[in-house]
């Protein structure tokens, strides 16, 4: 049975992150107990292309028309921390429209809804962990966390990987966003290198002439502990 090694300290945010005010009443106050990895934890739902319908990987068309905004192609590779590809896994994404507005009753930000942008998509990685979808670059938007608070533009990602231990929900950001300095969600990640891993890279090789800008976002899930056999040098 495989086991999954812990991520390096500083990789993930602390539950208690006072700068992000919503954590105040929602973080556990007691130390977490250790759940040994047994069969329930090293297995997990294996969702992939079975949850994806044709067109789910293109967010730029909805309700009979084209969404407004900068068309972008987001692609990358899902792998584990050992560098192994995570094949055939489902990626679910959701985001604000070009004006920074979500199609959600709770979002009252005074930017218009786009009648042709729903803001959610799905795709599955291929056998080598590569994924790709087309969308609109989301806008930044204000929120009430602190004075003049603005979320940097981001796309929400949800992945299952291949085990309960690999579950990841994260946000993809865009390079050189001037709003990073004041965002407590982005800055909740203690390690600067960790924060950098949430920022996509502009990718001119994927940018398509007269069509869309390309961005690359590789996603790294928890890796398995190596067995002694696997760590032996390969003589072949």
């Amino acid at each position, binding site marked *: 049975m*495989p086991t999954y090694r812990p*991520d*390096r300290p500083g*990789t993930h*945010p602390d*539950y208690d992150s006072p700068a*992000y005010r*919503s*954590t*105040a*009443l*929602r*973080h*556990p*106050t*007691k130390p977490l*107990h*250790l*759940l040994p*990895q*047994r*069969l*329930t934890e090293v*297995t*997990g*739902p294996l*969702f992939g292309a079975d949850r994806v319908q044709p067109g789910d990987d293109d967010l730029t068309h909805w309700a009979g028309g084209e969404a407004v905004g900068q068309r972008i192609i987001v692609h990358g590779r899902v792998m*584990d*921390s*050992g*560098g192994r590809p995570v094949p055939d896994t489902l990626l*679910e*994404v*959701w985001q604000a429209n070009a004006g920074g507005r*979500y*199609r*959600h009753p*709770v*979002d009252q930000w005074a930017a218009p809804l786009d009648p042709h942008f729903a*803001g959610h998509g799905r795709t599955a990685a291929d056998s080598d962990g590569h994924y790709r979808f087309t969308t609109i670059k989301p806008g930044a938007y204000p929120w009430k966390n602190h004075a003049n608070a603005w979320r940097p533009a981001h796309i*929400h990602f*949800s992945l299952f990987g*291949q085990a*309960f*231990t690999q*579950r*990841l*929900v*994260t946000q993809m950001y865009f390079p050189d966003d001037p709003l990073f300095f004041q965002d407590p*969600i*982005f800055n909740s*990640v203690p*390690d600067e290198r*960790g924060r950098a*891993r*949430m920022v996509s890279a502009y990718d001119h090789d994927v940018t398509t002439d007269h069509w869309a800008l390309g961005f690359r976002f590789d996603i*790294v899930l*928890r*890796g398995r502990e*190596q067995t002694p056999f696997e760590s032996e040098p390969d003589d072949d």
Partner: protein
Amino acid sequence: MTEFGATPSQTVGPFLSIGLVWADGAQVAAADTMGGIEIAGQVFDGAGEVVPDALIEIWQADPDGRFPHPDDPRGAVTYPGFRSFGRCATDATGHFSFHTLKPGRVDDEQAPHVDVTVLARGLLKHLVTRLYFPDETAANVADPVLATLAEDERARLVAVDIDGTLHFDIHLQGERETPFFTV
């Protein structure tokens, strides 16, 4: 070996329902499957207020204690009408519910259990807990995971049978804080 740093976790935020709600999410077992059970609960914050923007996911063995997964050493099996996984967003009053089958014993040590994942606005990383069954008193006493908890904490992980529905409330914080795990 090169080790790649993992991608950090971030909150699902308040608009998670746009991307993560599945029409069939709460149906771990098909509605007409024999022996179905209901699991239901409510999510509360540290002030005792309901949490209307959480997502609960469950992962569990089938009634034979097996998983549809290649790392189950007994081999992957599919139980008819059952998929081991469920997902349910909380409603305006913090309620969630699942239709499922009671899991069998995964091994000779652990009591029947359901792994529970909690995602919400204000949670920068998902939380993990476990649900145990109230009709498994002897197995629960012998369970090696429950054994690591204090008695009052153990009791909080055992669902309460009220009129045939298994109730499992989740308290993110406070006096009745749910015991959470790191995996």
